[in-house]
């Protein structure tokens, strides 16, 4: 299983699935931040915009994620302010440029984006920026991997572990996968050659029954990770139980702002109430994210659920399992019909 969505995309872009020998199959894991963000989060963001007239600043791939009350693209079409930014700092700069407006940054992502978001919040506090806040939904990868590996249905022999998250985490936190659960682990880079080497290293571990955490991506990842980045996360955020789309609640797997940074918490500044949101009917994203079914096994795939009007989160992001699968191995071209 490749845990990270960027790996999924790189694997499909390079056409690797067709090159694998029989008996070797890659399964996409839960590592696409957009995919696992629940629709309640979108509904909250949309309510913030509608009820408090804030400007929402977001990474691009959140724009098409469906909540029960529509997408951020729909919201922008209705005339509400939604700005696409490339980093959390971009959102803070927006706040400096538009002091008369309230900017709320949609803080999603894993340990890769969390340090920069933490740094942005600290920076905003130092510069006394009063019109900037975040709607926190960052997630932690290790608790999700724990939940995944505890699932008795799951049959995965090895993990292609994420390169960029591991730049921050290092290799230590994954040891339980190899030592307690006896699965092969390789922290892998994102070039085609990296991924192929990572797969080879996994196969060698499995054949020798020598399960450990190896670092293929050693030009970027140190065993100790980046302690400074982790210190930023710890200073600004605290872990709490949180909902993953397709997984439900995973203990201590989300990040919320610590009390001393409460002034930057959009929810505390602009309270909203939203209705409970059930998963879309027929959508099997939950099983896809667990690696239990292929995207094509979902009845909505390719018919009701396509990249331009996604039903489930895995179709939304270009990194999502279903979008990657759709883009690269779809056999029919809609235009002809």
């Amino acid at each position, binding site marked *: 299983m490749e845990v990270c969505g960027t790996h999924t995309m790189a694997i499909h872009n390079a056409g690797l699935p067709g090159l694998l020998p029989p008996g070797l199959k890659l399964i996409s894991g839960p590592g696409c931040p957009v995919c696992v963000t629940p629709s309640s989060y979108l509904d909250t963001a949309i309510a913030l915009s509608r009820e408090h007239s804030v400007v929402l600043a977001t990474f691009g791939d959140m724009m098409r994620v469906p909540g029960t009350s529509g997408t951020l693209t729909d919201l922008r079409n209705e005339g509400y302010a939604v700005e696409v*930014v490339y980093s959390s700092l971009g959102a803070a700069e927006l706040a400096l440029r538009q002091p008369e407006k309230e900017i709320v940054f949609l803080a*999603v992502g*894993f340990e890769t984006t969390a340090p920069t978001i933490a740094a942005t919040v600290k920076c905003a506090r130092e510069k006394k920026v009063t019109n900037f806040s975040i709607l926190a939904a960052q997630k932690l990868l290790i608790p999700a991997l724990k939940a995944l590996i505890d699932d008795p249905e799951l049959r995965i022999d090895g993990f292609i572990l994420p390169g960029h998250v591991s730049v921050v985490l290092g290799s230590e936190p994954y040891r339980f996968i190899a030592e307690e659960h006896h699965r092969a682990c390789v922290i892998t880079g994102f070039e085609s050659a990296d991924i192929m080497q990572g797969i080879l290293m996994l196969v060698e571990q499995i054949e020798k029954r020598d399960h450990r955490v190896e670092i293929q991506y050693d030009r970027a990842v140190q065993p100790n990770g980046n302690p400074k980045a982790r210190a930023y996360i710890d200073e600004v955020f605290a872990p709490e139980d949180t909902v993953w789309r397709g997984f439900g609640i995973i203990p201590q797997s989300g990040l919320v702002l610590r009390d001393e940074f409460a002034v930057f918490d959009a929810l505390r500044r602009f309270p909203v109430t939203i209705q409970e949101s059930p998963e879309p009917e027929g959508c099997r994203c939950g099983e896809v994210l667990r690696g239990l079914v292929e995207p094509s096994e979902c009845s909505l795939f390719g018919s009701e659920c396509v990249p331009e009007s996604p039903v489930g989160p895995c179709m939304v992001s270009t990194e999502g399992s279903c979008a990657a699968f759709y883009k690269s191995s779809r056999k029919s071209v809609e235009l002809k019909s």
Partner: protein
Amino acid sequence: MSDAHKREAEKITLAHGSGGRMMQRLIREVFLEYFDSTELANLDDAAELIIDKSRLAFSTDTFVVKPIFFPGGDIGSLAVSGTVNDVLMKGGCPLYLSLAFVIEEGFPMQDLTRILESIRATAKRAEIDVVTGDTKVVGRGEADGIFINTTGVGVILPGVDVGGRNAKVGDAIIVSGDIGAHGIAVMAERNGLKLEGDIRSDAAPLNRAVLPLLERFGEAVHVMRDPTRGGVATALNEIAVSSAVGIVLEEAVIPVSEPVTAVCDILGLDPLCLPCEGRFLVFVDPAVADDVLSFLSDLEECSNASKIGEVKGSSSGEVQLNTVTGGKRLLDMPAGEMLPRIC
């Protein structure tokens, strides 16, 4: 809800204008419903008009680029080269251009004259005359700075018959230079991205390459298309469907500059989906492919030209990419807006 009712309730989104699948739908399922011109239905970049035995290429385009000034160009140079290139892609020698402005109240005169200077210089380079124009000024907030429309007309060269429906099995597909720089240059400027490496828009009129190419190779040239919105991926998918052929591309020989590749990697963008404004794709008879390539490579503006693929016998309308690693994948057109990724 019926389809008709669904459509009534729909609204136009930015994705409808981004050159991908949503825009294809808008054009085919909405616009074409109202007009039955066979020329329009070809959906080429320019229409072919026959007037008193003269064959004319006729094209119009509107320019709303933000920001209006960007590295390597501006809305003025784009307004000329965009329309000139569309006329060229139909095999026309561009002759006359119209120029229409919608300007927002409060727009700086200094910026307007800078744009006009750029239009003059680009028109000179494209050897086209601006012969008619229009100006409208709207209130503050009713437009965003300045919008420009240009319409171009040119005479189609004798013996030339190019169009999206003319791709033939076996045709070699050549791209005239490295792709994606325009898209990245505009995106970086728009979002204040501080990029290392000097990425400048490729926007330029293509007459100095296209006209001699057509004069020399004439009938052996079957299709030409400038990969603007939606990039090479969209252009080739459109051609594959229009000509009912399959297309196979070789990723290893598609020219992309190192800085563009690096930015695409960081932002999760595909260079094949990025717009170019000074590049063209040309489908030629395989017998002349090498000559066309060496002819283009000798021109300064096409020095990175490369033969990137060929037309295959299937009528699937599919574009297949053979990857650097030896894998294969289907190259689709982007669904909607190109959106940068989280990480």
